[in-house]
């Protein structure tokens, strides 16, 4: 079978690209080694949270400053308008997660250790945690759930730098008896879906919180019915309730993965996990087929275009071997941000600027990986997400923003092959 596009990678960037292409009538195949970073990251769409040490209030307004300091950043290929268009499209394609937000304004949500973190688009269940307006917050933990420590969160948050006064306190509740004393986020979320934990929580919080308090709970309100549970909590308690993202596995991230893959499957798109794309058949500077290894051996999938969304080092899209050589693992593409003949030496301080932090592929404005000469390696290969070099997304708080925006932009470039290259508007 041949495809219009093969997408390599089932993280946020790959799924966004695949869904956009599918929606526009393409026959798409998604192949991936496994689920992507959706299961690790909070489902917030962080477009740009920091430029250096400066906390960003408006990602769109801060783009010039970002690009001044990081000229090879993936956002250089997108204008603020295109960024906004991609994110707006995403907001309407995220199922019941119900994103709100804009590229013009960051909200500040508390992390599980009590640091206000800037995000541009957030799921409905998290939006109530915006700290900018201040207020009285209470953070609720569940006994036995080890990945959320409300007291530390509250104590840190009370001392955080915020535009309006915030008070915070912690509360630990003991959920109805469970045979398990070691609770993961997935297990607690499952109990919200099936054991009616939401009703218990309403009863438990009604007496222990004041009507003007804003209630933060760990992001475990369910995998399937979180939106309904959250809604029931807000109406039942008549208080604002919100989820706080915590350690992986990320329950809201899994919801997002499920929402995107469900739409793909409904449209007949195959998502094949547990396989490895490695290599291509090439003719006249174009990829004609992608080679995919599965348990029974290699299969070659003829295709019109390819989106490489295989991730960075964390997802295996990049690898550094013990001799200090960095490789792009699917097509052996040229990389930027890697040391040449010099052996990589990481800096001695954990928070220092680290070599390889910006490693990845460089692209043209159509997001096609380019070689040292600046020309596309393959005319029909596009890259999206964490495989793109030039960003330090975990420091910038830009990872999910890059994935959504470039996943969408890669799809657009494939859908309109003859369109004029996008102007590098924001430089």
């Amino acid at each position: 079978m041949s495809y219009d596009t093969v997408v390599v990678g089932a993280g946020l960037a790959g799924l966004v690209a695949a869904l956009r292409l599918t929606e526009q009538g393409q026959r798409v195949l998604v192949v991936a080694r496994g689920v992507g970073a959706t299961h690790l990251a909070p489902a917030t769409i962080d477009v740009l949270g920091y430029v250096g040490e400066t906390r960003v209030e408006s990602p769109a307004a801060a783009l010039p400053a970002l690009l001044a300091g990081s000229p090879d950043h993936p956002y250089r290929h997108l204008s603020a308008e295109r960024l906004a268009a991609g994110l707006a499209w995403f907001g309407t394609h995220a199922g019941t997660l119900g994103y709100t937000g804009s590229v013009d304004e960051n909200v500040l949500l508390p992390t599980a250790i009590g640091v206000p973190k800037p995000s541009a688009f957030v799921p409905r269940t998290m939006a109530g945690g915006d700290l900018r307006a201040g207020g009285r917050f209470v953070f609720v933990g569940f006994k036995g759930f080890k990945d959320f420590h409300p007291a530390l969160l509250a104590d840190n948050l009370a001392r955080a730098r915020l535009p309006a006064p915030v008070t915070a306190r912690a509360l630990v509740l003991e959920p109805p008896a469970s045979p398990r004393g070691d609770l993961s986020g997935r297990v607690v979320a499952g109990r919200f879906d099936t054991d009616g934990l939401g009703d218990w929580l309403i009863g438990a919080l009604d007496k222990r919180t004041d009507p003007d308090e804003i209630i933060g709970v760990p992001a475990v309100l369910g995998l399937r019915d979180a939106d309904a549970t959250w809604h029931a909590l807000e109406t039942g308690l008549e208080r604002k309730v919100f989820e706080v993202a915590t350690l992986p596995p990320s329950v809201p991230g899994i919801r997002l993965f499920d929402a995107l893959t469900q739409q793909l499957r409904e449209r007949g798109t195959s998502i094949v996990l547990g396989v490895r794309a490695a290599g291509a058949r090439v003719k006249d500077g174009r990829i004609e087929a992608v080679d995919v290894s599965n348990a029974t051996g290699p299969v070659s999938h003829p295709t019109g275009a390819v989106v490489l969304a295989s991730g960075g080092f964390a997802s295996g899209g990049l690898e550094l071997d013990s001799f200090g050589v960095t490789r792009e693992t699917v097509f052996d593409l040229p990389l930027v941000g890697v040391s040449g003949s010099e052996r990589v030496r990481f800096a001695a301080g954990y928070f220092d600027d680290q070599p390889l932090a910006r490693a990845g592929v460089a692209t043209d404005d159509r997001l096609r990986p380019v070689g040292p000469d600046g020309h596309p390696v393959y005319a029909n290969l596009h890259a999206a997400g964490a495989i793109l070099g030039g960003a330090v997304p975990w420091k910038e708080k830009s990872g999910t923003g890059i994935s959504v925006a470039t996943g969408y932009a890669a799809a657009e470039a494939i859908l309109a092959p003859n369109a004029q290259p996008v102007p590098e508007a924001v430089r």
Partner: protein
Amino acid sequence: MATQNTPLSSLEADVLVIGGGSTGVGVARDAALRGYSTVLVERRDLADGTTGRFHGLLHSGGRYAVKDPSAARECIAENRILRATAADCVEDTGGMFVSTPWDDPEYGDLFLEGCKATGVPAEEIPVAEALRREPRVNPDIRRAFLVPDASLDPWKLVWGCARSAEEHGARILPYHRVLGLEMEGDRVVGARIRSERSGEEFGVHATVVINAAGAWAGQIADLAHCTVNVRAGMGLMIAMNHRLVHMCVNRCKRPADGDILLPLRTACVIGTTDVFVPDPDETEIRQADIDLLLDEGEKLVPGFRQARALHAWAGVRPLFEDTAAVAETRDVTRSHALLDHSSREGIAGFLTITGGKTTTFRLMAESAVDAACLQLGGARPCRTAEVPLAGSESHVLYRIGNRLAAREPVPQAEEIVCECELITRSHLEETVKQRGTTSLDDIRRVTRLAMGPCQGGFCIYRATGILHEGGTIDETVANQTLLGFLEERWKGVHPILHGDQLRQARLDDWIFQGVLDVEHLPA
């Protein structure tokens, strides 16, 4: 331990031990068992120096059988004693010496002769049998020999000794630095001590002061105007994920760099190198040494460079030399040295015990306390060869599956804080209480918290949250603890960061910076 937080204006003791490595706690335990009142001071945590940074090999003596027969004899004798008295610290992995294609197979004959002469049980086995036992070992080995090497947990050993000493009345004071030795004429009568935690200073008056500071023994001796020449021989170790070998696998050749690979708890460790360093506190890991160990590992276990390296660290051997300088530190004897400064420099009440190796720590302690007895009114018999260590009373050797076996009957009975090392919440809380510490690094040394594949990616937030919930620390200290641990961990991670461990490190970056944003915690 609870005692370390008690204010101390001054202490009286028969014996003051300086140094909290295996030798120091061994001396303290030995002295306490003989009925002497004993105080031990250590400038940092117990086992924070050489002991906690060695490869973990309980020598059979095979390694020294050819070139250092007396060291070999000591090793096999102590090996047998520790199996009996420190069973919970010893895993009976067995040891195997192999002749790889890079080693002269005839050395095997010398090896067998040396083992026979020194009483180290050694048996040649067919190569096919060796490969059956160790399927990952280089299939081109030409000879293989079995010896009773074992894997020794240095932290369990040190804490077992320390608890045992305390049970017999000793006071063990980690984080207590010696500021100076107190002299009365030509006699050392005690030391001036500062608590590194509270800043409080106090004196310890003792009849005998035993300098067991290992590679730092020269610095302590200087305080009494005595001279102890200890060279610091830095050795690099790399912990690899999982056990690539079941036994302690040694190259059958003259001891050299990177020729030992042994299982230690959930990991395996390759060692080591030997580089003279002028200052035992300055142990910079060089890329060339990392590459050397990886290349030597590749000779023992093909594919070693693709295996996952978790952590690298360097320890310093205390190498005693009495006279002229020696070029190669490995050629300095690995036997220990007991120095009575009354006969050397005319300073009474002051002994130095240094050199040696962890395998023979008990013997070193015995000889030091024997010498101390002479200054304390006469011989008292040593009991450490018979009395088991705290935690080893049942004489059951440690097995890798012990923690799992303890958890399995009631799966998920409580939170598992560290999945890599199967550490439960109550285990963590008990350790905090018992040790009176809130330093994650101290807790790591007792529990192995954060020493598995994720290097703390998941457990550090949890452990910090639990410490803070316990009410013993406020958020400022909690944040410092977490950030300090991340920096400390990075020191051992960044030198070997490649392959799957870089992948893990990037995931940890996402957790700490992307999800929690610890970089912007309030100062």
